Each structure stands twice: as structure tokens, then as C-alpha cells.
């Protein structure tokens, strides 16, 4: 097990490194330079040069990358070009925000998606099933900005039930924050609902068709017991993994929602950092998402291992 974990960890590190290289060099070909991004489009070239020098971005590329990566190895993620201070607090704040939003979306969508998927499976082939499947699939592929706009028009503009901005302002109470986060969570819920429902449906159908469900039914157990004890437990195992891998997407894929709802999350942070060529910030953001994704998949693995006796106990016997 430890060997396996070490191997996974090694691969994860390689992936992250690859990610950092890609981002760094992709970021370099982006036109413009950090100094000008800070001082404005019409800034005096001498000022731009001076600032670039202060930032160290006039050094050769490899030197820049090297000093960044050695800094990273010493636990120093670098200093933001734009904000001229360590990037950690920014990334951390953005991550916390994103996690809040994602967590809310999850809290709503996980039960909903599982319920929908299980319901669809129990009504396999009937109208309920088709509706849930098609709605789920469509919700998952209608862009967030489309569904986001629709919910804004309905709930914020017309009905005025909920605030339109995701950030509640500094020091707002948890309840107020929740109030602000509900609308932005909805497009995410739409996107994820399809995924989760689909997996839950497939898992449930498989479990329903399985021999062990037949065994349980033919024992004379009540249908509710069969479903609860025998079907769901096995059906939802693969769903857990899917949910966890979606965490990665969710944390990172918030760009559009965060833009639409003016929310200072990690997606927004990366997007802005890329625009401003704020390389340390960009790298930190991207790597954070990478780490979150890997941790999420690792947790998913661990979770499904823990819940699945087949994996937990090996195949010995």
C-alpha cells in the first residue's frame, strides 16, 4: 500500500512539474510584459524597463524558471508581480472562496444527483428515467454563463430574492455569505448534476441487474431493504470516485461563474494573473488547482478503497 502511495505521489509530482513547465512557457509567449501590465498601457518605456528589472523578468527565461522552482522547493511560492507581495495569501484567500462556493454546490448537488440517478435507474427506460437522463446531460453541457444568466434574470433581477454578487463583502456573517453563494452555485449544480446522476444511474442499474440483488430479492427482503442495503451500497461506489474527480474540475472550472458573479475565487485569480502576466501568481494558482485535483482523486481512491472490501482487503482469502 505504501509503495502504491509512493508511486502515486511520484507520478503526481511529475504531473505537477509538467504543469508548471507548460504554464510557464505558455505564459511567456503571451505578448506584453509584466511591467507594462502594472504601469498601464501608456506608461513610459523607461519606467516599464525599471519595473521589469525590479521584478526580475528581464532575466533569461531559464534563470527565471530556475529561481522560481528553487524558491518553490524552499517552500516559497514567489511574490506576485502585480501585488508585490507573497502570493500565498492571495491564493489561499481565493482557494477558500472557491472551496466555499464549491462546497455549497456539492452539498446541493450530491444528494440531488444521487437521488436523481437512483430514481432514474429504478424507473429504467420509463419517462422519468429519460427525463432525468436527458435533463441531466443537457444541464451538464449548457455553459455556465448561459444558465448563470438565466438564474440571474429570474432570481436576482425579476424576483429580487437573492443578491446577484457572490461576494458578501468582508466580514459578512455565514448566513449572508450563504445567501450570496446560492445563485452562483446553481450553474455549478447544473453542470455536476448530469455527471453524478449519470454515474449513480449506471451504478444502480448495474447493481439492480446483479446476481446479488437477485439473491437479496429472492430471500424475500422488502424492496426498500434490498435497495438500501444491497443495491445502493454497491451502486454508489463508482459515483464517489466521479464526485471526487469532479472536485478538481469544480475548483478549477469556476472561472466563468466567478467572472459572471464577481467572485474572487481561484479561477478568477488565474484568469487575471494570466492577463497581467503575473507569472508567480499564475503558477501558484495553477499548481494549487493541480494539487487540489490530485488530492481529490487520491481521497476518492482512498475512499472507494475504504468502502470497497474487495480493494480494502486485497484478494487473498
Amino acid at each position, binding site marked *: 500500500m505504501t509503495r502504491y502511495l509512493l508511486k502515486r505521489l511520484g507520478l503526481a509530482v511529475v504531473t505537477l512539474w509538467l504543469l508548471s513547465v507548460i504554464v510557464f512557457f505558455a505564459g511567456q509567449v503571451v*505578448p506584453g510584459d509584466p511591467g*507594462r501590465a502594472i504601469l498601464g498601457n501608456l506608461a513610459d518605456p523607461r519606467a516599464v524597463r525599471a519595473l521589469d528589472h525590479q521584478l526580475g523578468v528581464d532575466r533569461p527565461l531559464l534563470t527565471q524558471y530556475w529561481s522560481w522552482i528553487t524558491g518553490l522547493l524552499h517552500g516559497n511560492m514567489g511574490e506576485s508581480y502585480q501585488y508585490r507581495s507573497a502570493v500565498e495569501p492571495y491564493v489561499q*484567500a481565493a482557494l477558500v472562496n472557491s472551496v466555499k462556493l464549491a462546497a455549497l454546490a456539492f452539498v446541493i448537488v450530491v444528494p440531488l444527483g444521487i437521488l436523481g440517478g437512483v430514481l432514474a435507474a429504478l424507473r429504467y427506460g420509463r419517462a422519468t428515467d429519460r427525463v432525468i437522463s436527458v435533463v441531466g446531460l443537457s444541464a451538464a453541457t449548457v455553459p455556465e454563463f448561459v444558465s448563470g444568466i438565466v438564474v440571474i434574470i429570474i432570481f436576482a433581477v425579476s424576483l429580487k430574492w437573492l*443578491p446577484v*454578487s457572490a461576494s458578501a463583502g468582508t466580514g459578512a456573517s455565514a448566513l449572508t455569505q450563504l445567501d450570496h453563494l446560492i445563485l452562483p452555485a446553481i450553474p455549478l449544480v447544473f453542470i455536476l448534476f448530469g455527471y453524478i446522476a449519470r454515474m449513480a444511474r449506471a451504478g444502480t442499474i448495474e447493481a439492480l441487474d446483479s446476481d446479488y440483488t437477485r439473491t437479496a430479492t429472492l430471500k424475500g427482503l422488502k424492496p426498500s431493504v434490498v435497495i438500501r442495503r444491497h443495491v445502493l451500497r454497491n451502486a454508489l461506489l463508482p459515483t464517489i470516485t466521479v464526485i471526487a474527480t469532479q472536485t478538481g474540475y469544480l475548483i478549477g472550472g469556476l472561472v466563468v461563474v466567478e467572472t459572471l458573479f464577481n467572485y474572487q475565487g481561484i479561477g478568477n485569480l488565474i484568469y487575471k494573473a494570466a492577463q497581467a502576466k503575473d507569472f508567480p501568481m499564475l503558477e501558484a494558482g495553477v499548481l494549487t488547482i493541480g494539487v487540489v485535483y490530485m488530492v481529490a482523486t487520491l481521497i476518492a481512491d482512498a475512499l472507494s478503497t475504504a468502502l470497497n472490501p474487495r480493494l480494502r482487503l486485497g484478494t487473498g482469502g
Partner: protein
Amino acid sequence: SSGSPSSSGSSSAAAGKPGATIKAAIIVPSGAINPVTVADQGGLDMLGQTGEYLCLSDQHLSLRPVLATSWTPNTKADVWTFKIRQGVTFHNGHPLTADDVVYTYKLHTNPKNGSSALSAFGGVLTPSGVKKVDDSTVEFHLAAPNGHFPYLTSSDNYNMIILPNGYDPAKWQSTFVGTGPFVLKTYTAKQGATFSRNEKYWGTKALPAATEFTFYDQQTPQILALTGGTVDVVGQFSVAGGQQLLNGSYNVIRLKSSAHRELSMRTDQSPFTDARVRQAVALSLNRPAIVHALFKGYADLGNESPFAPVFPSTNTTVAQRAQNIAKAKSLLSAAGHPSGFSTQLIGNDVQEIGEYAQIVAQAAKAIGVNINVKMEASSAYYGKATFGNSDWLDATMSLVDYGHRSVPNVFLTAPLETINAKAGTGPWNAAHFSNSQYDKLAQQYVAAIDLSSQKQIAGQIETLLLNETPIIFGYFYNYLSATAKNVTGAYPTAIGHIFLNQAAKS
């Protein structure tokens, strides 16, 4: 407009009670709040909350004394003497003296410090020209005569808040140290800032007990925040996204400004080498319709020169150019393009410029000119911002945004003077316009001190540019701010500040 930002303001019509907490929505500062590097609206707004300038360029573009009590030029207008206000202390207790002013001005004019104000001082002031005379007097020795120099010391040149002598500007964002009517309570990058009344303020104490600024990435949520009652004030909004604020339910503060778009045509590249071609394009535009479509009337017509109606020196006797398709076509024919031609327009994709570009392209089609529009993000568009390395400066047709200035000097020189790398003139001359008569007139205008001679030169420039039309100045749009109906006394300036010291809520 109403209210007044400074002690010298008198006509405060504040109906509301003092002691309120005013909440404002502004655009998020794009970087560190460092007086040296700030170059965006959110940042300059923050500087102005606690910092103060030598003087304030008010809503009518006249200068009011703030930390300077007076300023006088010598006869050539190349040495300006400023008297510094006495009895002022910084929020950290440090008393204000001429040393602080000298420190601040040397800081920004020294190229090594990479100040974003450097371009404004270019060709005007160098560190060696900043001289302390005594504790309350500072002299500025300019590189060339400049009748409008005090504007460079005003809120217009937004980086120039006075810092305590020796203060490290990189640390400013943790203290917001200044001399202004508010002191910093909290600042959270990318989220917002709160301020409280400076009880030791040297002038009229601020009315609000506190102010709260929330930063927004975009305009829409700001407007929704105002309509939803989350904030009292929206620092700035555009007509396109803010029409719902214009229905009378909100106080809209409308300031005429000199902000505009310059549509330059390469006067050194066929077919725009011929002034008739440039005129033809300009004649294809229906400016009143454009102003209606893009600004619902909240803009003034432009007439191919930077002399916006808001400038006192603008000569209004020069006739406004109007759409004339027939004339445009005949000019094209005369220039040898009877069936038109094709060309490309590259624009900076911000605000309404994309729409404007499309309108221009559609209008040009009517005279047979086929314009292929390409909109670019700022980084790609400006590139290195030098000739040969910038779509902005190199494109055949280029459409760029210029923010508000209280005097037209920069507009007259940087984009229109003959390019001369050594002398540093014409650095933003995207039209590659070169006209010695114009260069002379521009120099004369800059040096002129009195309004009547300015007006006279302005008339000549306007006529010249109308004939040459290197750049189409289509419109000068208004600067709009809004507050809730119960809020009075918010004082925006067209450069982007919103001063709340006289704001009140009822």
C-alpha cells in the same frame, strides 16, 4: 453635480445627516496600491481616499488648492513656485513640509523608480528640477515652458499624492498614509477597503463617520449592488450597462469629460496618405446617431481634434463635421479610389470600442470602403508600445482609448506631434502624422498661459486637424457616477476619483 471634496469647497448642499457609513462600489484595483505604480481607476481611487494632491482639478476642470495654497509661474512659464499648506499632519503624525513634496516629486520623476507618472512628466520635469526653497515653498524648474504645469500636480496626475519624506511607497498599501479626511481602517486586496473619518483633518471634517469600498471586477454587479441596495454609490458606470440607472430612480452625476477614442489612419501608408481619403472616412460617420446608439446622448460630438467641449480653451467657432456620403464619395474618387478599397482596423477590445469599430466599418461600407475589424486584448494590442512592436502604433487604422485629462496638452503632443525618437516627441503617434506647422502650433499652445491666446491657437489647431484628419475624434463621452436617491454629496472627478468626504445619507 453637487458637493465639494475639499475644505475650500463651500456650497455643500448636504441634506443628509453626518455620521453615516457610505458604501461605494468601485472597480477592483488591478495591483498593489503603490502610489508609484498605480495606473488604474480602482488604484487611483484608493490613493485619493487618504492621500492628497497639491491641488484638485475639480469637476469643471479648474484647479483648487489643497496641499498647495498657491502656485505662480515665472513669465516664461518654465519655473513654477508652489506654497505648501502649513499645519497639516500626516496620519502617522508627521507634519507636512516642503521636504515631503520634494521627496514625492523626485520619487516619481526619477526613471529608476518606474513610476507610472513618468510619462506625464516626460519632457517637462526631471528630479533635478524639483527644488525646495524653504519649508513652505517648492520650485519646479521645467525642461520647457508649460502654461498648464499645475495640472500635473493636481489630482489629474493621480500618482502624485504627497508622501512623507523618505516613505517607502511599496509599504503604502499597509498604511494608506496621507493627509486626507479619511484614515484607513482595513484594506483587503481584491475585496475592499474601509475608512474612518480623520478627526485630526486639517480642513473641514468629513461628514461620514466611515466609508466602505467594495471592489468589483465588472460593472454589472456594481449596478446590481446599487439597485439591490447593497451599496450607496457606484464610482463610475457606462451607459451601455447602466441604462437602468438613468430612469430617475437614482442620482446620476454626469460630468463632461475629455475621454475619447482616437481612430487614427496611417498618414504614411496608402491609401491614407491622401488627406481626402481620411476626410472621406470621417465624413461617412453619423456622429449624432453614434452618440445616440452608444451613449444614449451622454457624450459630446468630436470634431477631429482633441479639443473637447469641456475644455475652456476649446474654440467652438470651428464648424462641426457632419455625415456627408456624397461628399465622401467624391473625395474618394478624386483621390483615385472611385470604387473604394479594403483595409484593416485594429482596436483595443475594451468598453464600447468594439461596437464603435463595427459602426465605423458599417459606415465606411456606405462609401465603398471595406474595413476588416480586428479587436485585440490590451496586451496584444499595445505590445511593447513602441513603433514596430505594437499593433496600436503600427496598424493601418487603429482605434484606441484615451482617458480623461483636464488639459489637452498630452492629447495634442504625444499622438500628433512628429515622431522623433531622440527628442521623445510623438511617442503615441499611431497616425504617423507629421506636420511642421502643427508641431509649432502645439508647442505654442502648451506654452500659452492665458486663456484667450490658448483659445486662439486652439482654433488654428482645430481647423488644421479638420483638414488633415489624421485621427478621427468621434465623440467625448460623459463620466457618469450614481448614488442612491438618499445620498448626497458624493464628488466624482472625470479622472476616476470618487470623493466621499461631503457625502451624507438621509
